């Protein structure tokens, strides 16, 4: 019973990570740094709440979340692919933009600096371990599938082969007629869509948007991408590992003698230790970050 509840909690916590890092893998394998995942997710959360509010239907929210994440990702693509701006700079800016813009429109649309009104979501009432509620949330299924889907896309489709080639050696891809920018545009747009779904999950699970509700989850997702060495399956496990550490943190905090602050460090310390001891030197896609001049 307890164990099942822990698993259910881990699965729930892992959702935004899975969505966003699946997107991160795609973007980074095509050579574009996924620094903006946090921003895509936040934008997706906001538009999802907006869509669900006006559509009075969570599915409208899901579609709007995809749109919101993708819109920001396309801006990133425009700057870094079309205009060859420094990816790190634009990525940082995308995150600031997402925070500012969601707040601005939150004020404009809902006259609040912190929350949207309650919007329709997918949740059901359940008093057991939480599995029933999981199974009834279609976004959970989509999140669980996002990693296998990206793995399939990368390793089993012509598009995936092109993504991998473009991220390693764009010149080589170009020389055989692969439209490099187009491949990158698509990969980035998909990454925005996936991260947007992660945001939609957060907003619809809470039945509302609140200011900066992603709270750094996009960065954790990026950490998972690096941790999993850009391989979708390993990245998926990294997400689950982070989520499990957070579950442990939640269960230990307040029930043990250790000050809460130290318990709250666990997931982060674990990441550092694992990174230093287990993963070692990670070799990114060779052309990662090099779309500029």
């Amino acid at each position, binding site marked *: 019973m307890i164990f099942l509840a822990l698993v259910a909690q881990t699965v729930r916590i892992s959702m935004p990570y899975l969505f966003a890092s699946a997107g991160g893998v795609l973007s980074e394998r095509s050579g574009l740094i996924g620094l903006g995942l946090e921003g895509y997710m936040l934008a997706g959360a906001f538009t999802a709440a907006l869509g669900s509010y006006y559509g009075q239907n969570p599915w409208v929210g899901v579609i709007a979340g995809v749109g919101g994440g993708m819109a920001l990702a396309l801006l990133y693509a425009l700057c870094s692919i079309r205009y060859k701006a420094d990816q790190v700079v634009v990525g940082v800016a995308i995150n600031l933009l997402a925070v500012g813009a969601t707040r601005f429109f939150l004020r404009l649309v809902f006259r609040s600096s912190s*929350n949207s009104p309650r919007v329709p979501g997918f*949740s059901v009432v359940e008093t057991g371990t939480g599995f029933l*509620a999981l199974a009834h949330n279609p976004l959970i299924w989509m999140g669980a599938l996002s990693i296998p889907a990206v793995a399939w896309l990368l390793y089993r489709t012509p598009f995936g082969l092109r993504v991998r080639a473009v991220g390693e050696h764009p010149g080589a891809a170009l020389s055989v007629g692969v439209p490099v920018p187009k491949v990158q545009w698509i990969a980035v747009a998909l990454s925005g869509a996936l991260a947007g779904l992660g945001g939609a999950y957060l907003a619809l699970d809470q039945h509302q948007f609140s200011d900066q509700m992603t709270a750094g989850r996009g960065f954790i997702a990026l950490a998972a991408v690096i941790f999993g060495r850009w391989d979708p399956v390993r990245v998926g496990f990294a997400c689950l590992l982070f989520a499990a550490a957070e579950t442990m943190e*939640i269960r230990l905090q307040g029930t043990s003698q250790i000050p809460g602050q130290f318990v*709250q460090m666990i997931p982060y310390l674990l990441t550092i230790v694992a990174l230093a001891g287990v993963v070692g030197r990670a070799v990114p896609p060779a052309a990662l970050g090099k779309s500029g001049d």
Partner: protein
Amino acid sequence: GATSPTIDPNAVNIGIVFDVGGRGDKSFNDAAYLGAERAEKELGVHVRFIEPGDGSDREAGLRILAAEGMKLVVGIGFIFTDDLNQLAREYPNTDFAGVDYSVATDSAGNPIPPPPNLAALKFREEEGSFLVGALAAMVGHSKKLGFIGGMNSPLIQKFQAGYAAGVHYVCPDCQVIAQYAGVTPDAFRNPGVGKELALAQYQQGVNVIFHASGSTGLGVFEAARQTDRLAIGVDADQYSEAPGHVLTSMVKGVDAAVFDAIKRVKDGTFKGGIYTFGLAQNGVRYVYDEHNRNLIPDSVHARLEQIRADIIAGKIKVPSTLGAAP
């Protein structure tokens, strides 16, 4: 200072600077906003709001308002304490009020009074928390009670201390699971974590959770809905966040206090000093109305009223720090 197009020199102008979270947080800041809004309507005053960003913006916000010639400048949150103190000395002709202003003490432990033009509006959150703690223990049908705080800080620990004392008063062998969402101000706006903390507590057999965590608490209500359990709101009556699942709310009369301060300024009766709002002043209270009456048996309500009277009479000592709680 700069003059803004919204200043009307003939009106009574009031300035308010919000805490982190700003307007629309459905608790603390909104309560202040409510009081100000009422004052605009009923007293015809003009109110201007500023939502500050980083640390130095708090003082800057107060200063911009003071320099613009506001009659009264209000800072919402204990974090404004030093800034208010400073400005009240610099602008002796402007009135100031600080919600949750924390009064310093001298080496002998006596409170140092604030400047004469500064009203410290303090609330005995621990008293209200004590009551909702007792209520939670009486209707919880479980030896485990939950508390979820936002950022770990002395103010929030005050809620926790009162709550735990209330629980233990009616149920000495009950256990309070107290958790915090984080260690930075972001912990007041992370409903995702609030929900997971609450779900974990409910799953461990907790039936009632009291939150003092700003927007993070919205996640707690969401968890209460999803698992069909109870949660207790904070600062304002949060019934509408999860109808049927809000046992009660520990209401802080921030709106009344702010309204009152504005009214005194308008009437010319404003005086500085320490104003403490406890159960006795009805400055903190628990909600008991048509929405939640069915959740609280009459006997429980009667006992609660008794405890309330005992606290007011001084028969029950309510701790305001964690060290004092068992």
